[in-house]
């Protein structure tokens, strides 16, 4: 049994007196592609921040490859230097992650902080821009980009460091269908690689493509775990956790009825 | 008042950059210490906010609208030093990236609005709010007062900067080279607009936002309220250990001003109103009085009240020069030093008495 990449043990985290994570435990194996499923506010984003050492649980522990992540440990630059390179987090709101004057500067930020030599920085950044097909945007300022372009830049700025673990917070949220499907293609493309990918989403349609293992969240707890196929079969559980809903609708034939279902594009 | 390039002479601009520098330096040191790695994102976003607030059109009583700087709000929520930096950065962006407001006069604008504004707002707010609860209406009033006073203090500084231009900077024919109006016109002109519209705008904004936060998120007001342990410790620590260190840049500024006071002698004639009873019967003095009063003829006899009171107090330095000092410039400077020294001594004594009283009260409570 390989050392889990992340071992979360009975973690409790409160956010302004609201319980975000409630005695939560789960483990993630290296190379796994994991989906954290849950409605908004179920604790997925909070967990991702804790996994990236940006927030620390008030109870319980979390280890990364055997190392316990505490506030003190994250202030030790000998630990954080490699940690920041090995784990990359793409935030849900791209604007908070695009704080540099130009796209090129943004992608170069990580490598510059990790003090790579200048030539290497320039070469790596240009390569990454090519891969993400955003070379034409390299001198643009972030406030003029479309949401899809912004998300591609944030991905590029994290992937340029070639992390072993990729954490993605709602990567397809707020994207138009075309950009969303491009994003999904990209996520599918990570299959078979050495990376561990943890994606949080409430979109059940993409789960089968992007993940081998799912955890369903509700009010800060894991209420179900399993492969996508197993999870998708549990319709009553999915209804309870607000991942699907029931309402009356009209079919083309004119008959109306109600049953639990998902809408491929949220309305 | 955002002073554009061309209103102030390069030497005035340089002096004001020099006056601003120690405050910027102190502010950066203190803010860096309290924020450490958060400095960059917090200050950037606060400066951006300050910029946007300056662009807000605010509704004023009477149906008009006006703009405010938001200096009191920034000071109350961020503390005076961070406020100095955030507003200075917003002003710099306005000048450098939007071409609004002067580049040579950036130091002057920062000094007037960011530095003087923040410090005055802080002093007035702390004094007026006292130890009132975070959600009390006294704090709203204190904020309104702080905003109003701060913006008028800034306007006054700008008025003085304008008013001294024609005094020192004239071309050979006597035409003023920069802001053309003397103090007697500049001060009333600036202050009328600010005591009314600009002051009102600042008052409305400061009171309104503090009231809003009292309803929604009172903890934001903690930083500048006593009872906040961190702020109190900081103040106590500064007062006892590093008081001199933190006050040093201000001391340098004050020293600079003291050295420059003899320049007051270059002002022609006497300051309006500063006449003794004797001057009314002296021909030369009467000429000077007329000049200073826009050619109004002074009364032949000194006013009765002036005559009665003029013998009441003979200042230790009559005519600003004790007999043993021959050169008036030296006497002027000495008087300035003595005057400021007396004021500083008085404030130190009151300050330490107040601290001692507060410490005693804290011990008992």
């Amino acid at each position, binding site marked *: 049994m390989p050392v889990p990449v992340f071992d979360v043990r009975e973690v409790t985290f409160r956010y302004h007196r609201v319980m975000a994570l409630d005695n939560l435990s789960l483990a993630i194996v290296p190379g796994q592609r994991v989906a954290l499923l849950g409605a908004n506010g179920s604790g997925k984003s909070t967990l991702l921040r804790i996994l*990236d050492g*940006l927030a620390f649980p008030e109870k319980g522990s979390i280890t990364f490859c055997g190392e316990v992540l505490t506030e003190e440990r994250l202030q030790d630059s000998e630990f954080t230097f490699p940690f920041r390179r090995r784990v990359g987090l793409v935030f849900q709101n791209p*604007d*908070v*992650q695009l*704080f*540099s*004057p130009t796209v090129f500067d943004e992608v170069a930020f990580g490598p*510059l*902080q990790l*003090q790579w030599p200048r030539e290497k920085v320039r070469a790596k950044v240009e390569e990454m821009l090519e891969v993400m097909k955003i070379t034409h945007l390299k001198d643009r*300022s*972030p*406030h*003029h980009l479309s949401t899809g372009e912004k998300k591609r830049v944030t991905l590029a*700025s994290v992937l340029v460091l070639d992390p072993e673990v990729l954490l993605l917070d709602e990567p397809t949220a707020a994207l138009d269908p075309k950009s969303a499907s491009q994003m999904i293609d990209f996520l599918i493309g990570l299959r078979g690689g050495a990376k561990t990918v943890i994606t949080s989403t409430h979109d059940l349609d993409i789960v089968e493509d992007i993940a081998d293992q799912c955890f369903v969240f509700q009010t800060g707890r894991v209420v179900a775990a399993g492969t996508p196929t197993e999870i998708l079969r549990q319709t009553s559980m999915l209804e309870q956790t607000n991942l699907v809903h029931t309402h009356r609708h009209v079919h083309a034939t004119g008959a109306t009825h109600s049953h639990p279902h998902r809408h491929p594009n949220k309305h | 008042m955002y002073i*554009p*390039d*061309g*209103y102030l*002479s*390069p030497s005035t*601009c340089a002096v004001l950059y020099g006056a601003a520098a120690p405050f910027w330096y102190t502010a950066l040191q203190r803010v860096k210490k309290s924020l450490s*790695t958060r400095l*960059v*994102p917090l200050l*950037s*976003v606060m400066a*951006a906010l300050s910029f*946007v607030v300056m*662009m*807000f*059109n605010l*509704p004023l*009583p009477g149906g008009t609208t006006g703009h405010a700087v*938001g200096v009191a*709000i920034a000071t109350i929520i961020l503390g005076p030093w961070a406020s100095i930096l955030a507003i200075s950065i917003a002003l710099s*962006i306005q*000048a450098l*990236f*939007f*071409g609004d407001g*002067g*580049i*040579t006069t950036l130091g002057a604008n920062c000094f007037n609005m960011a530095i003087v504004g923040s410090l005055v707002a802080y002093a007035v707010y702390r004094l007026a709010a006292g130890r009132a609860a975070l959600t009390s209406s006294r704090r709203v009033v204190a904020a309104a007062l702080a905003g109003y006073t701060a913006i008028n203090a800034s306007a006054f500084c700008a008025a003085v900067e304008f008013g001294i231009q*024609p005094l020192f900077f004239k*071309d050979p*024919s*006597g*035409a003023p080279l*920069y802001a*053309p109006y003397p103090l007697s016109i500049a001060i009333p002109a600036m202050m009328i607009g600010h005591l009314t519209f600009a002051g009102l705008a600042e008052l*409305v*904004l400061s009171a*309104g*936002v503090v009231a*809003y936060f009292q309803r*929604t*998120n009172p903890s*934001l007001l903690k930083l500048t309220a006593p009872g906040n342990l961190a702020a109190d410790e900081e103040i106590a620590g500064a007062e006892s250990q590093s008081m001199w260190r933190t006050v040093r840049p201000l001391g340098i500024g004050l020293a600079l001003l003291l050295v420059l006071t003899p320049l007051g002698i270059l002002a022609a004639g006497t300051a309006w109103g500063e006449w003794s009873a004797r001057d009314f019967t002296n021909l030369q003095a009467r000429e000077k009085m007329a000049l200073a009063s826009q050619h109004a003829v002074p009364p032949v006899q000194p006013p009765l009240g002036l005559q009665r009171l003029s013998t009441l107090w003979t200042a230790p330095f009559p005519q600003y020069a004790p007999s043993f000092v021959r050169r008036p410039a030296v006497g002027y400077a000495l008087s300035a030093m003595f005057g400021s020294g007396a004021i500083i001594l008085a404030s130190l004594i009151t300050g330490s008495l107040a601290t001692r009283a507060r410490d005693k009260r804290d011990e008992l409570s």
Partner: protein
Amino acid sequence: MNFLERTLAGFLSAMEHALDAEDLAKTHGLLQRLDPRIKVIGILTLIIGAATAHKLWVISAVFAIALILAASSRVSPLLLAKRVWIPVLLFTGIIALPAPFVIPGRVVWRLPGLGWPLTAQGLLSAGYLVTRVETASTLSVLLILSTPWTHVLKALRVLRVPVVLVVILGMAYRYIFLLLESACDMLESRRSRMVGELKGPDRRRLAAASVGVLMSKTMQLSGDVYSAMLARGFRGEVYLRNDFHTASLDWIMLAVFAALAAGALYYGR
């Protein structure tokens, strides 16, 4: 809703101005082709030259230089008139208007009818003020219109501005647009929900609440940006890239700027 609409109009025009600047900065004029560091220094020295001059003709000469620079950089005089010349005339012009009547000196004319005297010194001082402000403003707007703001930012390093301040300036500028956008959204949604006129105190409460909401969002934003920076390895030090290359044109123009500024300082003293 006077104040809502005026505020919105102000926000929109600021965003437009920034866009105009970015467009113009991409055309191929003289100023656009220069290394931004040389441009910043050059234009700054010209502004100082105009500010120091004690002679009206020297200030006018610097203004003429600004016009030549504008023409060779494809900046239309109409744009300059709209953005600089007319606003300055309206503001500084009105301030300078009383000067010929108020400043003491040699009387050269009397206003017919009212008999108010105009002095030569007063006219001169009005002239000094208006031409100085017009010249300096024209030069700074030329700098902005011909240089992408990101280049202006990095050029400040040449003037020994500390790295941390350059980074803060850049980040603040970038987030101004985010705040402007969300402020616009907020104000527009409030405006669309307005039915009828609000009374004075309610208007003021609305304005204060708008600013308050913006402030709260800003606090949230700063925390998130901080986390995002930490996540990519930020530890308090910032590192910038330097990617400017000077060509021979730059050195020639630097010499030209230096000569013009020296001339202004010499003849203007």
